[in-house]
């Protein structure tokens, strides 16, 4: 097997276990898209154009709540701000690549692909063409995400509304936080965010409650971090 292909396959294999929870997430997203009535093309269109589960669900949720486009877009940006960290961390490994490579790799830089490829890059600093790992991991995520979206679209037209599947939005995001449940500071940040959003839902203008809650919680996170760094 050619070396680049080997690295690409390694990326696919490394990311595969992380795809197990992605499948139900994608199905839930597809079902919710259909239940909110945006239609099959747009539900799939979001998965292809945005390719980010959290952003897609926030967009649907706020849109169905009649929120203005500007607030929706700022909320999508807030949800995505964690990707800035991914880009910064990976930049040293892929800074020599051509622009076209950087564009393709950015498009598929989702949480799961970042997690496994960053790990691979760290351990294989001197390997040539190691970016094929991210290509393999990223497009595995992309393919699984599109297939599970389509499954959800098909199911969404038959699943009865009484099942209350919109509750799975909350559960899915909850599940994305399980690794932080054991960290005391994260729990404080989570509570601030949740409480500000719940109280602010009715009183914050333009339904900008996600942004305001996230900013308040981030300020708390900054204060907690700075006090930590001072101590050391």
């Amino acid at each position: 097997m050619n070396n680049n292909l080997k690295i690409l396959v390694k990326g696919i294999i490394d990311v595969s276990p992380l795809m197990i929870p992605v499948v139900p997430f994608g199905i839930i997203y597809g079902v919710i898209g259909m239940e909110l009535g945006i239609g099959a093309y747009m539900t799939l269109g979001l998965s292809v154009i945005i390719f980010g589960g959290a952003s897609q669900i926030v967009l649907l949720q706020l849109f169905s709540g009649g929120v203005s486009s500007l607030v929706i877009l700022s909320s999508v940006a807030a949800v995505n701000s964690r990707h800035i960290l991914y880009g910064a961390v990976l930049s040293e490994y892929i800074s020599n690549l051509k622009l076209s490579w950087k564009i393709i790799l950015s498009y598929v830089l989702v949480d799961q692909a970042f997690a496994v490829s960053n790990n691979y890059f760290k351990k294989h600093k001197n390997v040539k063409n190691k970016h094929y790992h991210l290509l393999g991991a990223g497009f595995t995520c992309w393919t699984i995400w599109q297939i599970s979206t389509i499954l959800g679209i098909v199911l969404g037209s038959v699943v009865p509304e009484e099942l209350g599947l919109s509750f799975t939005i909350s559960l899915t995001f909850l599940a994305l936080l399980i690794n932080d449940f054991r960290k005391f500071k994260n729990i404080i940040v989570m509570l601030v965010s949740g409480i500000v959003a719940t109280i602010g839902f009715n009183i914050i203008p333009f339904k900008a409650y996600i942004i305001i809650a996230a900013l308040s919680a981030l300020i708390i996170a900054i204060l907690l971090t700075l006090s930590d760094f001072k101590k050391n």
Partner: protein
Amino acid sequence: MHWSLIIYSGVITFLTRFTMIFLLKKDILNDKAKKILSFVPSAIFPAIIFPPIFLDSTGALDLDSNPKILAAILAIIIGYFSKSVLATIFSGLISYWILIFLFNF
């Protein structure tokens, strides 16, 4: 929904992933900045999680016999111990169904 909203959202999502890869030659974020960015999911996701659980369809606080609160607490407990994304989602969903269909919450 308009396609333009989807395309703008796609561009924003892409730019958050692309900007640093495009601009930086090497990782310049210091430990402090990284630590703070690591809090981003904790700071944002609860703002999406809490309101649909605690508020009813009119936006009023609903704390009495609210099956979503009980189901979410159970999901958190299962998630804490199992550390499994799937177990968290499905324990919450199944307990929610049991509460609404068997106990008529």
